């Protein structure tokens, strides 16, 4: 098949990976968007999927978060097969995501965007909310505090907490999306082109921040990028998709040197 010799990286492979995708194929009425992809994410790692536009990255990503279900193959998260689960169930298990084109709850306030992200970790039911019973106030207060902490963590001033999220500047909207995802205490954070539309300075800030999230929150992170330069610095392992197939996998240095990647992905620019 493809180069699998790079798979056991420096991480001691004793521990079971957080997520294991086996033989995942997704077809849309004949169009095969993902073909027989094997992929895993070790705990507390940052891995990246790259590939040219239309390579099937986002399709694959959507299957990890339950939006699509694979035509065949399995996806195990912490040993549980999530491949046929609804998105909200997957979210409850500890998978949170952001979107390539920012998708905030635009007409909700900044703080409410984060608080709603904590939905799966809250327990208050509607009848408890009406009656004011079942520790509902404490839960609400704790959620609000946590939301403010997360805003601070991602670097959004609490002064804008009551603004509608659609009124935030672009960079803050990206950060808010991450804060919303973090609010659910995820084990796995899926970031879909987190630096799209950013200038080089902002991009570096974002990649630094992603590194910090892993170090300080102990998160496991999967990045999707079509720009290879972005992921070189932060990710320890890169998987390359092209035309729906995995064509290479390995450390950034290996990927950079892989002739198939250069041909399929960087080819034109490299030879130009």
């Amino acid at each position, binding site marked *: 098949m493809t180069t699998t010799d790079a798979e056991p990286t420096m991480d001691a492979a004793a521990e079971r990976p957080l997520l294991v995708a086996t033989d995942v194929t997704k077809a849309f009425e004949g169009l095969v968007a993902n073909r027989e992809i094997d992929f895993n994410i070790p705990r507390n790692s940052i891995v990246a999927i790259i590939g040219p536009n239309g390579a099937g990255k986002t399709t694959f990503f959507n299957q990890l978060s339950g939006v699509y279900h694979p035509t065949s193959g399995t996806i195990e998260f912490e040993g549980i097969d999530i491949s046929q689960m609804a998105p909200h169930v997957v979210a409850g298990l500890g998978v949170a995501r952001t979107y390539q084109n920012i998708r905030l709850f*635009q007409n909700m306030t900044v703080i*409410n965007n984060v608080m709603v992200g904590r*939905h799966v970790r809250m327990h*208050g039911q509607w009848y408890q909310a*009406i009656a004011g019973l079942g520790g509902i106030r404490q839960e609400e207060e704790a959620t609000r505090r946590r939301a403010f902490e997360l805003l601070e963590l991602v670097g959004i001033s*609490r002064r804008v907490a*009551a603004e509608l999220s659609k009124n935030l500047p672009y960079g803050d909207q990206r950060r808010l999306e991450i804060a919303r995802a973090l609010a659910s*205490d995820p084990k796995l954070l899926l970031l879909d082109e987190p630096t799209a539309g950013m200038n080089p300075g902002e991009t570096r800030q974002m990649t630094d921040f992603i590194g910090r999230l892993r170090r300080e*929150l102990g998160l496991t992170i999967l990045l999707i990028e079509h720009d290879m330069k972005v992921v070189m610095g932060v990710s320890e392992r890169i998987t390359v998709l092209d035309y729906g197939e995995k064509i290479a996998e390995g450390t950034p240095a290996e990927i950079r040197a892989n002739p198939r990647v250069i041909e399929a992905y960087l080819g034109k620019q490299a030879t130009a």
Partner: protein
Amino acid sequence: MTRGLALRSAIQAGLITGVVMVYLVAVGLASAFARREVVTGFLSLGHLMLAIPPLAVGYIVAGRPLPTSRRLAHALTVGLAAGVLFAAAFLAAEALSPGIRTVLNRVSAALLVFVGFGDLGLEPGAGALLNVAIATGLALLGGLVRIAPVPVRRAVVGAATAVLVLSMVEPFLRPRLLQFALSGLAQFIYRSHGLSMASAAIILVFGALLAVAWPGMRNSASSRLASADPGTRSMLRWLALLVAIAFLYTLPAISGSFLTQVLVLVGFYVLLGLGLNIVVGYAGLLDLGYVAFYAVGAYFTALITSPTSALGWGLNFWVALPIVVLLSAMVGLFIGAPVLRLRGDYLAIVTLGFGEIARVLLGSDALKPWLGGPNGILSVPFMLGDGTYFLPIVGKVTGPAATYFPLMGFCILAAFVAYRLKYSRTGRAWNAMREDEDVAQATGISTVNYKLLAFAMGAAVGCVGGAIYATHLQGVVPGGFDLLVSITVLAVVVLGGMGSIAGVVVGAFALIGTPELLREFAEYKLLVYGAVLVAVMILRPEGLIPDASRRAELEEAREIEQGELKVEYDEITGDA
């Protein structure tokens, strides 16, 4: 070049204004409202209605970022253009009179006298010129108000509002003043059915003063409130609530039977609006068949409580109510389940269909043995006693007031429930679903459950409205539950501001209460509804009282900022 362009757009605006004025006259709106006096012998509501377009457009045009003199010139141009068009239409109508009535049947001789100031003995030509002069003057006045400093603007608006409101409440206020032995005051304020000149002048001054002083008063009050300690603040909040409830409690005794009837009608729409607000405003599910729940609540109640119904149980209302609520919530789930996968327009059309199905079924021959077909179900008992009961302080309660008290209680309860839900995990989940269903689901929200919950909650509130309605009319007939009810409730919610609880109350008063106060113009009710809705959607698309959650959160953010809140990153790590 640009100068010419700006002038041309001013002329255009003026001509449109003129067309609006001609329209108001031609459909008979202005002359109908002319019967209603604002200041007796000087100004009628019809005159005012014609005066508002040039005033408003003059005000708007003068807001352009240009030198003052040109802003005023534009306002003048607008008025002139509007006046000339209006006068030309008047002269044309005069020339074509009586023949024109075959096309525009409202353009009577009396109308032409009204428009051309014939009552002042003016010839048509002179009347036309006077119209041009007045329109120009009004537009210029609007422009002057616009360029005036803010306090002056505020004063003018305040004065005008005060006069208008006090003159419009005359049919209710005067009998009340007489009831409380204040006939002297009544005679001073009102002459015939409008304000007297002297009282109008005084009210103008008071309105202006109040409007100018208001921001300062509010600021000092709110700053004092902000500096007060939390204990005092919550005490003040409770006190305000208490005063409001006391006011509502004694209102029927003060207001008399007709106004109470109006309040009951408004109350029904407040209740329905609060219910629909959960479905449309919170959860974003556009339900055009909400009347179905109103009808279902009313019919279930009638079926269970009326001794002459097919069931003949004749249960007490309060025993029946929980059963009705439960049944209606189930109907909500029943309707909600098949439309779970539908979004936006499709959902609206399907719910519209459900509303119609409900209406047709209720009056159908097939269900006649149970629901009585077109005759409905009669002899539904009163909620309390025989429609007459005694309350402390208020004393004997009868007539519409017998419905008023429980209805108000349920409105307050519904508002409380809506408020609690809004600021909860449930409310946020609904809002998220409204904003982006897919992302909401990826955030962990079970959209199926929350949609069903919204439908069930909306149904429960709506059916309580229906249940009270059935006892209020002591019966149900299928005629009362048509599409117009659904649309009116939706209009109440949208006008007030989607998702806003206070907005529903204001919207119900504006859309249901005001037309009742201006009963004699019922003929034009829907026309005015339409115009008001269009105007609000253009000028204030977020509604009259936009969702206040942002304000509340602003305060909380400030509070949290004051208290120290140090963030330790490892603290956030959570269970990892």
